[in-house]
């Protein structure tokens, strides 16, 4: 019976997922409200960030509180490559980097963010627990200070502006910049779907099982020959690259970027999205992201932004106290229990027990 249910789950899961993607692709465009589209685009960008954070927080169990640094580095790198910049390396002439095509810049943002992920992974995983948290926070702070103070490169608090939008090459028309919100929305949706599939493949693979083994019992994982540091670095590099992609999308959509992208509060927003939705689940960051991406917009009508942050803070406490595993596992558990009760009332406790141990 259980195996039957699992096969149906395996069929219905992706089906529901693709249906959701289809609705998200067609619905808002058909609805046609630009404000709604803008909210969904920003939410989508944050969901990509939250999914990448989930890889660290949910699957390897590392509480990375500097995640916004990778997002910001991706944003700045992509913006700078697209705009072109001079770099004074101490020689007589500054090295001039001309403007690059936007997609090259976007890719560059991902690579640079991933490179910093590699460095932080190498450094930070020498220390764990509270120390790791503080190293990651410090890293984001240093990144913000650099963005503020390296005025020659980043314009400091004056912000980088006039960043070109993402573009597409069409036969006959050449490279067409995509200013319209509809295109940006669809691109964000596409990158979100790709990120989701990458994470799905990853956590289903040997690597993903190694991550979970680390999270559950690190000494045991070590003892069966899992190279802990290597896998943690792999996870950080992928998560950082993905956050960098989110940053690139942000920068080419908003088309202005200032040092405030590195604020701690944005990391916290992503953490709340992951926790509320359910860390260590594929759908968790999407559910949490939609909830906390759209809720502020609904609150904006009735409450000041401070109230929104109070709600965030309280929500975080409430989730930890009452739904510690997040919405997706809680609803999933409830669903499994209902199904089990309907099918085989006698073994309901058995299935519920299995759910909690999973």
């Amino acid at each position, binding site marked *: 019976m259980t195996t039957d249910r699992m096969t149906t789950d395996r069929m219905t899961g992706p089906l529901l997922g693709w249906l959701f993607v289809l609705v998200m692709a067609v619905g808002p465009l058909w609805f046609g409200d630009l404000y709604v589209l803008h909210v969904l685009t920003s939410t989508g960008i944050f969901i990509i960030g939250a999914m990448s954070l989930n890889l660290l927080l949910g699957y390897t169990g590392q*509480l990375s509180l500097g995640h916004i640094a990778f997002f910001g580095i991706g944003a700045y790198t992509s913006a700078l490559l697209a705009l072109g910049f001079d770099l004074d390396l101490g020689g007589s002439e500054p090295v001039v980097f001309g403007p690059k095509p936007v997609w090259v810049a976007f890719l560059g943002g991902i690579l640079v963010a991933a490179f910093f992920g590699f460095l932080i992974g190498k*450094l930070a995983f*020498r*220390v764990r*627990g*509270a*120390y790791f*948290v*503080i*190293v990651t*926070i*410090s*890293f984001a*702070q*240093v990144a913000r*200070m*650099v963005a*503020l*103070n390296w005025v020659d490169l980043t314009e400091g608090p004056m912000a980088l502006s006039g960043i070109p939008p993402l573009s597409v090459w069409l036969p006959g028309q050449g490279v067409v910049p995509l200013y319209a919100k509809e295109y940006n929305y669809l691109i964000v949706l596409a990158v979100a779907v790709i990120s989701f599939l990458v994470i799905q493949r990853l956590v289903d693979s040997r690597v993903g099982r190694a991550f979970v083994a680390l999270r559950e019992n690190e000494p045991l994982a070590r003892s069966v020959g899992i190279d802990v540091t290597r896998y943690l670095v792999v996870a950080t590099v992928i998560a950082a690259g993905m956050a960098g992609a989110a940053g690139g999308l942000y920068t080419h959509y908003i088309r202005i970027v200032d040092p405030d992208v590195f604020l*701690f*509060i944005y990391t*916290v927003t992503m*953490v709340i999205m992951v*926790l509320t939705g359910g860390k260590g689940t594929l759908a968790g960051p999407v559910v949490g992201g939609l909830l906390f991406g759209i809720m502020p917009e609904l609150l904006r009508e009735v409450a*000041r932004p*401070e*109230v*929104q*942050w*109070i709600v*965030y*803070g*309280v*929500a*975080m*406490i409430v989730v*930890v*106290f009452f739904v*510690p595993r997040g919405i997706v596992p809680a609803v999933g558990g409830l669903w499994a229990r209902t199904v089990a009760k309907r099918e085989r009332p006698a073994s309901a406790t058995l299935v519920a027990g299995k759910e909690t141990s999973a």
Partner: protein
Amino acid sequence: MAEFLQHCVNALVLGGTYALLGIGLTLIFGIMRVVNFTHGELYTFGAYMAFVLGSLLGLDFFLSLLLAATLGVALGAVIEFVLLRPLKGADIDTTMLVMIGAGIAMQASEQLTWGGVAKMVPHPFPPDPLVFGPVAVAPVRLFVLGVAVALLVAFYLLINRTRLGVAMRATFQDPDTAALMGVNKGLMYTLTFAIGSGLAAIAGALLAPIFLVYPTMGDLVSLKAFAIVILGGLGNIAGASIGGFVLAFVEEFGAGYLSSGYRDAMGFLLIIAVLILRPQGLFAAKERIG
């Protein structure tokens, strides 16, 4: 040389309050295993209380300092009782997330109550700096340093010379055995959090007349307190006091001789360096207290 001495004096004054912040945070981590993200908000709370009592209600400056510290102790006790006590036995990540949530809610409440405009707190000291040969220092800064050092000494005596201190150290070493010896573990936790919070609040109240008071002032302070605690080794009180002064000196000299824009980055670069080279902290062989 004059410039060098002036930097030293500035660093000493700043270091005193940094040390107060650091020992509060390290005490809470050492005894309770809680990474306290409300610490910076308690600092802000102390500063605003100094503003309310001293500026709005017109109370005596010294009385308002005392009351601000007392209110900080009370708020700390409430936070421990409401948020941490029910989570007894939860892992470090869980309590950390609850503390982050509480910190955000507190900061947003301050913003809501006071608005974003910075406030000034008056003090009764003469504005003219005292000049000692090549260095000049404002009397209010000397007062701040004096109070900070007095509190550091008092705290040291509390931990090392009193029955309460013995009970706290025992709880740090082995909570269960301490409980068997008749130490009230719950009370120790509440007291620890309250004392740590009170130290943060008084640091905020002390610096309020020197710097401006605004809702997000706790952000950087929170992170700097972490830097101090890491420098000294998590849970190491003597280390945190020295760490406070080390950070102040690094910031002051870094800002003076390298780049003033990166002043606040110095501390973070320092902790990244410390964690790479000597993750157990500069002053400890292992985590300890007292």
